[in-house]
């Protein structure tokens, strides 16, 4: 039998006689959900999972009053659980990777490298080269140093925003806004270039 949202909320009050039972049940939900959701993630052994679940429970109980009831309580709890778990796993995976090093070895090479698809017609390849040159030029001239760095790390190197943010001394939310601003600038600049959206769609958007 499943608890309703109201039952979860009242049972998870520390004064409730059903508090311990509710914690046991919530722990089971988190265990089942997180191990299924994170099955493919490296570095998630049983011990790590238990540590993470403990963290999540400690996090959830005091802020139970912030639950707004727009969804099932277990969905809300798992949302926090997934966020906590992935933040930890990302950090473990990326903490020894230096942002500056990978930018130096890779991201900036992108700006001087050249690529095209030999299976495309010569015409299409020419347009693609032109667009690539434009893109590289605009990334170099339109973006600030920080925007360029973040864009290269996230889009070219596949580094999580969260870890890029940590190494750049900011947080994920601010980094998203920084990248959003960078995309807006690039979009405006591309639209000002002498290119038609059809060129872009042809070479990049469609496959």
């Amino acid at each position, binding site marked *: 039998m499943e608890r309703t949202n109201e039952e979860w909320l009242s049972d998870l009050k520390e004064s409730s006689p059903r508090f311990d039972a509710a914690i046991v049940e919530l722990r089971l939900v988190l265990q089942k959900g*997180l191990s299924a959701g994170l099955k493919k993630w490296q570095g998630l052994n049983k011990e790590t999972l238990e540590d993470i679940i403990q963290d999540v429970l400690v996090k959830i109980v005091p802020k139970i009053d912030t639950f707004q009831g727009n969804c099932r309580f277990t*969905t809300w709890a*798992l949302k926090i659980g997934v966020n906590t778990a992935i933040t930890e796993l990302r950090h473990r995976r990326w903490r020894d990777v230096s942002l500056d090093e990978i930018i130096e070895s890779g991201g900036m*090479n992108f700006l001087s*490298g050249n690529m095209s*698809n030999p299976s495309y017609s010569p015409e299409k390849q020419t347009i693609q080269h032109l667009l690539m040159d434009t893109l590289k030029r605009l990334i170099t001239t339109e973006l600030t140093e920080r925007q360029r760095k973040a864009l290269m790390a996230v889009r070219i190197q596949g580094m999580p925003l*969260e870890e890029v943010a940590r190494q750049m001394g900011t947080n994920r939310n601010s980094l*998203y806004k920084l990248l*959003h601003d960078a995309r*807006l600038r690039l979009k405006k600049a591309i639209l000002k270039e002498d290119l038609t959206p059809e060129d872009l769609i042809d070479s990049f958007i469609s496959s």
Partner: protein
Amino acid sequence: MTDPFQKKTSRFLKKLFTFAGTRNKKMQKGSMDMDTIKQMVRGIMTTRADEIDCAECFEQLDQFVELVLAGKNISDAMPLVQHHLEHCPDCKEEFEVLLKALRSIT
């Protein structure tokens, strides 16, 4: 394969990904270059002025994921969350894990 282009590409990729253990699966296929660029350009050209940030996305993600599970049309119901997930690899990753997690408990 002695295609000079391929040679050049693989050298370029090697240089690009000298650090070990990247999570980018696409690069192992050797064709990440154009895909990555395409993704970047698509991301740029579909940018909107009114995007929500990660905190706002997180706030609504539980409702969003329940709509997805119920098979509702999410681009109509919560277009800004949908748009954020298309532009934010971190939130998208969390959404996908949450979806899997919820499917396992229901």
